[in-house]
């Protein structure tokens, strides 16, 4: 379906440089693997300093969209334009399964990895960074866990550690893919508080969420996805019963 008109997206997207670049702009983006499209025709922008909940049923293409923005898969059609540098200014927290939890590494070292954009493969790890790690650990409430091996942490504690690593990254745009999937209420609230903090400091935040209540309470904006954009805008206008019903319907239709 996309093959025949592959050229289109390229023609459409002769880039206009605008005065106020958004953090991320999507222009008729189609994403997918091989012959199966996961996301169709997404257009819109994540403004700088916005905080968006990315909501949708399973298989709606939320993770795919995150991967597209990260540049891990390239769009089948359309364009994704970034107003910031992809490596140094975008930090991502993927679904936790890519981390090997049995690896014998301390919480301190795991968090210190967040300094990667500054240290890279070889550069030294200076005193400044050491202070930052300790600060990040205390912000997520893991100050006493620095020398613990990550295999001994609970799911919630590990998630806190990953948040601390994200904090170390010090990026302008933060993408989080289901950060609260296996985390209890108290931890979720703590971590949401951290996100609100970062938002207040002008960071752009996009979070994949399943908890609609949390989305309504903590996020000013929402993007409801179901293989395509169902609604995008202020959270109270997006997460309406009608829209949610439509989203469920669209996704079910895809699989039946």
């Amino acid at each position, binding site marked *: 379906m996309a093959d025949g008109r592959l050229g289109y997206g390229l023609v459409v997207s002769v880039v206009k440089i605008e005065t106020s670049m958004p953090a991320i702009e999507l222009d008729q983006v189609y994403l997918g693997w091989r012959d199966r499209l996961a996301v169709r025709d997404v257009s819109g922008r994540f403004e700088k300093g916005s905080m968006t909940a990315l909501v949708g049923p399973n298989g709606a293409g939320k993770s795919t969209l995150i991967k597209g923005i990260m540049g891990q898969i390239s769009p089948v059609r359309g364009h994704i334009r970034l107003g910031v540098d992809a490596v140094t200014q975008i930090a991502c927290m993927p679904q936790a399964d*890519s981390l090997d939890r049995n690896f014998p590494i301390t919480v301190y070292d795991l968090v210190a990895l967040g300094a*990667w954009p500054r240290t890279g493969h070889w550069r030294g790890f200076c005193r400044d960074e050491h202070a930052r790690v300790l600060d990040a650990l205390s912000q997520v409430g893991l100050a006493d866990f620095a020398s613990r091996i990550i295999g001994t942490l609970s799911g919630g504690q590990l998630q806190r550690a990953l948040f601390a690593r994200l904090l170390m990254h010090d990026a302008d745009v933060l993408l989080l893919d289901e950060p609260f999937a296996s985390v209890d209420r108290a931890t979720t609230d703590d971590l949401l508080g951290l996100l609100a903090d970062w938002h207040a400091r002008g960071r752009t935040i996009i979070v994949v969420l399943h908890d609609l209540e949390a989305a309504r309470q903590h996020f000013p904006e929402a993007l409801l996805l179901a293989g395509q954009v169902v609604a995008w805008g202020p959270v109270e206008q997006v997460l309406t019963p009608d829209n949610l019903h439509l989203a469920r319907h669209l996704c079910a239709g895809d699989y039946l």
Partner: protein
Amino acid sequence: MMGVIEWLFLPFIEYGFMRRALAGSLALALAAGPLGVLLVLRRMSLMGDAMAHAILPGVAVGFLTAGLHLGAMALGGVVTGLLVAMLAGLVSRLTPQREDASFAAFYLVSLGLGVLLVSLRGSNMDLINVLFGTVLGLDDAALLLVTSASSVTLVVLAVVYRSLVVECLDPFFLRHNRGMGTAVHMLFLVLLVLMLVAGFQVLGTLMVVGIMMLPAATARFWVRSAGGQMVFASILGCLASYFGLLLSFHANVPASPAIILSAGAIYFLSVLVGPLDGLVHAAQQAYARRRRLSAVSERVQ
């Protein structure tokens, strides 16, 4: 007392071939240990074995074309080892097949090819020596090869240590940060092949995997951190080499199996009494837990 000291040191003081054997196997063990730990951490413990089989046809081709010339055989081994690693990696990247399966396929083909090539020249005692090692007959070239390969490996490991750890811990993170995950992985495979090829003269292509994996598998029962395990594995490998050579000298048994069996003995001992999750330790913990639980239930009654 004097007897013990003589037993421990005299063979190496009196005989030059024992000193050479010790130097060669110590050099091998020093660099093989950290590589083994990385293999264990990457859940590729059997990969070393597969690679050792994979380098066989290259060694055989080197032998067939240039005779028992160390350089030719080493070059052949390196080339085939890397070729197999690259092709297997390519298949696993381009098709849904996982890397362990494609590796198994490629190394078995390589092994078949190797056996075929070896049999072309008939049974040859020299080649048997290459396959099973001649640690007691190391010449200057072999000693130079293994010591320089080991030095290069240790230096490169130290330089890319951070990348290797991250690539193994969280490949996604490295990829996102343009961390050249694939390059790091390939470099690791190059080091692995280099050490296997360098080690075939010392312990033989088949036994060299033992000095790599056994200390690495042992270290986990004594040290927790990845870096600590690497240092520990090196030390264990050296100890196993030393006592294996002594055993071989005093009991008059072949040297390279004696070295591997020493490492094996240390492994079994560690599984039993190792302070980190060793069997004895685990049993103690289970016993203590039962005691606590029964104490609680008595109080409840």
